[in-house]
């Protein structure tokens, strides 16, 4: 995952109208869509707000001028745990339906139920929309802008300070991580190579993790010393200047929020 950090940050440094929108607007919109999708009942109608929100996402993504392949790559990186749970749904009964109709009978008394397939599809729609908006948010907002936006939205300064420092170190670790992986490749070490003794593989990974841990601290010590030289202290307050949303940003946020609230409500009660 960490090796993706450069790609994501490079995408986030774009110059499209979506990139230029204040981070607060993008954070509120992304989180609102996620909450709206999660709040929607586990019903097949979810496809309606799901399709409309995906259309909304697709418009913003195309304006951001980031390739669709880039979106697909990120989706496939995120999918595994969610897809595991979604795929296994089809074999189980759940509390959201009263009756279950087997559509496929498998050995060992395992069945695939029509209702469970429907439930798995509902989960998939919700899951895809949620991760799409997270991908949009992180691909069009640099980490520092996101942190500044979060700070302006009320994130406690202690968290902001630590996260700000952590973000800087993440790039250092991504580089160290790549170096460690390169060293593994140079030595033809593959943790999944069964020809190597298992203990040896674990020992090598253990040393690599320990080294990463130590390097992280030593990097922190050096950085901290240089911060002290620049007058930093524990009680330093990171100033975030007040910045009002532009009229266009405010209008876009207001219209988006009305849209995000109305679409699920209309879909559930009137369609």
């Amino acid at each position, binding site marked *: 995952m960490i090796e993706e950090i450069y790609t994501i940050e490079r995408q986030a440094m774009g110059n499209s109208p979506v990139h230029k929108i204040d981070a607060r607007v993008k954070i509120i919109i992304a989180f609102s869509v996620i909450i709206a999708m999660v709040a929607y009942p586990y019903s097949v109608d979810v496809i309606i707000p799901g399709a409309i929100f995906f259309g909304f996402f697709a418009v913003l993504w195309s304006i951001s001028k980031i390739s669709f392949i880039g979106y697909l790559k990120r989706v496939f990186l995120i999918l595994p745990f969610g897809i595991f749970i979604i795929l296994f749904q089809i074999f189980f009964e759940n509390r959201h339906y009263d009756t279950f109709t087997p559509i496929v009978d498998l050995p060992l008394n395992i069945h695939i139920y029509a209702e469970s397939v429907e439930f798995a599809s509902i989960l998939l729609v919700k899951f895809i929309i949620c991760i799409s908006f997270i991908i949009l948010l992180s691909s069009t907002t640099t980490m520092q802008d996101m942190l500044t936006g979060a700070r302006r939205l009320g994130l406690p300064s202690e968290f902001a300070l630590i996260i700000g420092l952590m973000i800087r170190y993440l790039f250092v*670790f991504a580089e160290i991580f790549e170096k460690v992986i390169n060293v593994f490749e140079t030595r033809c070490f593959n943790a999944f190579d069964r020809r190597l003794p298992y203990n040896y593989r674990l020992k090598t990974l253990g040393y690599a993790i320990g080294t990463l841990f*130590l390097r992280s601290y030593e990097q922190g010590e050096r950085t901290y010393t240089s911060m002290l030289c620049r007058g930093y202290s524990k009680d330093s307050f990171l100033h975030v200047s007040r910045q009002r949303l532009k009229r266009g940003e405010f209008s876009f946020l207001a219209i988006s929020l009305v849209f995000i609230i109305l679409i699920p409500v209309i879909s559930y009660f009137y369609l």
Partner: protein
Amino acid sequence: MHIPDAFIPLPQAAVYWLIAIIFIALALKWARNELNEEKMPLIAVLAAGIFAIQAFNLPVGMGTSGHLVGGALAAIVLGSPYAAVFILTIVLIIQGVIFGDGGITTMGANVINMGVIGGFVGYYSFKGIKKAIGNCYVSAGIAAWLACLIPALACAVEMFIAGTFPLVPGIVAMGTYHALIGIIEGIITAGAIYLIHTTRPDLMSLEAGGAAA
């Protein structure tokens, strides 16, 4: 173990968020009271380090892989379960918001599982086992195994309460898988603590056999 959005209904996710916020507030209080000036950046570095550590995929068997959680490691090295809560919260925020690994509405549940349960189980089992057997590395290994297994079981129970996965298959699947990953996490945590203890004992808490800085 990172529960994505939509797998826990909103009212339940809100309850997990409330519980998580209590522990996050306690972790913040711990950070303000216990950490001196030098340890503030150390926490940030450790958070980034644990993020990087979670990027290492470990071979489990049958072509599957898993990653370390790191809660036990953080709690043992820094000598407090709140250190794990604090660090894992920050790691989960970055993973959820930037990488989409773990949800936004489910972040409360993820903080409870990996930070609170992982940190407390890792720290107190380490203390108890070390008192009983006296060996720091074996104790750390067993504690890390427990800190991997028990949050996974909690995750299975939460998914059952949410109605998105049945209880018994969930416990069997998550329990078996994380019992195996936990063995690797235990060995690697013990190895990492041995390495840190050997090269930089000043970084370790006194309870973990470290030297005063």
